């Protein structure tokens, strides 16, 4: 059912080529459906997982008949492919040396990256999914990881992509920023999305901030809502409760430390609330017509009424 819903959007995206934002499909959907090349970072946290987006990338690439290599460092194969359709499972290629005996001892990071270097396979735009980049960063020096990723991108065919899952709460912000500078697109996972209409879905919509860096000029930033169905297909729910255009909107604010935020109120105003506040007449401009007594604002105070401060 999910794939039937997605299919027309996929066709629209493929007809649009490399256009980032089609009129109907969002930026995230365009990226998942082949609009991204180079390094794509999926930044999640303990409270907002991003592995489901990786599964969406895998499913979309398989539907485009692209070869997909999944490098599993965090989870075993059965966890990653749980819920995916048999057709998608069958066509995914795996590199999961860390999950199959004999286990490497000690963790053979160098050998693992060496095995990935020979991934170049004939065919259209291969997709490499790295689950996760954080595993490498905890065991290798960041410059070596960056060099390895650059090597992977150089070794791939034109238009290929490396989609890497990054647990950003495991690394210092400076390292996350440096990796973001290498990426052509970043997907920052956020919390639940406030929807205009209540939805009764098994997978509630969530927020993602999409940061793209075109080859020329500056980048773009947009907040979108999305759902990933259990079979790995991407679904785009109805518009958000507050849509404030690019760069605005409710920001993904993943709770830190894994615990949900105890705050039961919002600190920010939605667009409608901000407009309603602007329409309210300030009390000092209000004149009562019932009593005919105008209420004027207080005159500005003289800072030096006695003129004794002017030395």
């Amino acid at each position, binding site marked *: 059912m999910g794939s039937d819903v997605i299919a027309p959007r996929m066709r629209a995206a493929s007809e649009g080529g490399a256009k980032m934002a089609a009129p109907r499909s969002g930026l995230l959907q365009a990226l998942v459906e082949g609009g991204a090349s180079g390094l794509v970072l999926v930044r*999640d946290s*303990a*409270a*907002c*997982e991003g*592995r*489901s987006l990786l599964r969406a990338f895998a499913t979309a690439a398989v539907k485009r008949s692209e070869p997909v290599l999944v490098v599993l460092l*965090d*989870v*075993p194969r*059965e966890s990653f492919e749980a819920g995916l359709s048999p057709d998608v499972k069958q066509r995914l290629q795996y590199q999961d040396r*860390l*999950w199959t*005996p004999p*286990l490497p*001892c*000690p*963790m053979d990071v160098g050998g693992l990256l060496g095995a990935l270097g020979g991934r170049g396979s004939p065919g259209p735009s291969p997709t490499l999914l790295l689950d*996760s980049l*954080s595993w490498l960063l*905890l*065991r290798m020096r960041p410059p070596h990881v960056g060099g390895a990723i650059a090597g992977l991108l150089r070794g791939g065919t034109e238009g290929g992509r490396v989609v890497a899952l990054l*647990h950003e*709460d*495991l690394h210092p912000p400076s390292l996350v920023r440096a990796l973001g500078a290498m990426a052509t697109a970043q997907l920052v996972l956020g*919390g*639940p999305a406030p929807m205009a209409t209540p939805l009764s879905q098994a*997978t*509630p919509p*969530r927020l993602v901030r999409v940061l793209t860096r075109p080859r020329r000029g500056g980048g773009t930033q947009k907040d979108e809502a999305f759902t990933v169905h259990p079979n790995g297909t991407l679904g785009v729910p109805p518009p958000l409760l507050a849509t404030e255009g690019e760069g605005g909107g409710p920001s993904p604010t993943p709770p*830190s*430390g*894994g*615990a*949900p935020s*105890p705050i039961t109120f919002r600190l920010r105003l939605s667009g409608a609330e901000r407009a309603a506040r602007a329409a309210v007449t300030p009390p000092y401009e209000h004149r009562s017509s019932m009593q005919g007594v105008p209420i004027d604002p207080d005159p500005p105070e003289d800072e030096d009424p006695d003129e004794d401060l002017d030395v």
Partner: protein
Amino acid sequence: MMFSSLEGLVFLEGLKSCLDLLFGEQEEQLGQPSPLQFISTSDLKALFDFVQVSLTPASSDSWKGPVLLVDDLSVLLSLGATAVAVLDFIHYCRVVVCSQLKGNIVVLVHSNEDSEDEENELVVNSLCHHSDLILWVEGLVTGFCKDVHGQVMHWRAWRDVVQTYQYKIQDKNVTFFARGLSAAVL
């Protein structure tokens, strides 16, 4: 640390063995390295080998669905193991216990939002990413209450839905109830 199955329990009393190892009171066991030799070598492989040997079934019909309980993982950090070594140990245990033996691992760790122990927080956050089920237990922010001892929040991987229950510890069991619905209130 404890390993359990339908057939029984296997205990490794880490703190006691640790003291025996440190003060030389433990006798050599036929050349077998101590599971806690990481205290001197910073290598948790011997501990993993002990887990693997203890849980590997001797016959095909025994040790179905083994469970590895680690109480608690933070102590390994206190004993000198690095955070990455602890994560590697858990990774190997997941491969053997969860993937091969189709069992489960239950790990106790301590965490505090104001904690400055970066190594411990790294382990806790990494475990959160790798866990299928997370139980976050904490006291009431309003302070001590004799009828409600705390609250537990749990959420599953793949779904960002958090459910919160309150609990009361009794002599032999624990009762859970929805927030504000303790017997004392009702």
